[in-house]
């Protein structure tokens, strides 16, 4: 199985998740579903970055009571650190989006994006 499509399987999953996320943002009417779409995108990008750091047969980059064969065979730590940062940012963004969604529901009584458009033109 050396065809590139199977070697790159995690990246294909990332592509599918990106597609799902964009579909949800673009074509769903419920605001909560749009927020979920953004979260799916977030997950896709996080998965992409963490997959970049994988080394075949590598161990977690932590020295505390690691198995002896782990030295010199650790996965890259930077992508994990980046993913951590990006996850927290994702939490922050989704919290604020949900707060706005609550406010919109209180004012318009609906979450349908086609009905709440007061701002146009």
């Amino acid at each position, binding site marked *: 199985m050396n065809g*590139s*499509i199977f*070697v*790159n*399987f*995690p*990246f*294909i999953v*990332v*592509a599918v998740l*990106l*597609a799902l996320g*964009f*579909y949800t943002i*673009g*074509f769903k009417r419920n605001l909560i579903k749009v927020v979920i779409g953004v979260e799916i995108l977030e997950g896709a990008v996080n998965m992409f970055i963490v*997959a*970049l*750091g*994988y*080394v*075949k047969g590598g161990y977690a*980059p*932590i*020295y*505390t009571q690691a198995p002896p064969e782990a030295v010199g065979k*650790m996965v*890259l*730590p*930077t992508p*994990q*650190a*980046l993913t*951590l*940062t990006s996850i*927290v*940012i994702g*939490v*922050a*963004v989704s*919290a*604020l989006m949900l*707060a*706005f969604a*609550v*406010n919109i529901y209180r004012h318009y009584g609906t979450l349908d994006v086609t009905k709440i458009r007061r701002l146009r033109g």
Partner: protein
Amino acid sequence: MRRALGLFAFLSFIVFIIAVNISLRPFGEPPHTEMDNYFIEHAQEEASANNVVTSVVFDYRGFDTLGEATVLFTAVSGVLMALRHYGGKER
């Protein structure tokens, strides 16, 4: 019409993204690891921590983490501001 156009743009974008991801380097074989090797080798003496990821997060890329904490602070302020009691003058 707009919907069809959007669907077309969406589908072409998806094909593009899948093409990108297929043409990436093979999974599990990073080509350049100089920066990460430095972290793995020097984290214990410079940052004095066994957990290399934590030493990257808080020492080598500590400024990003300050930014990250700031993002959380911003979001909490934003949520508390958006959901505060209605009040003040209507203007």
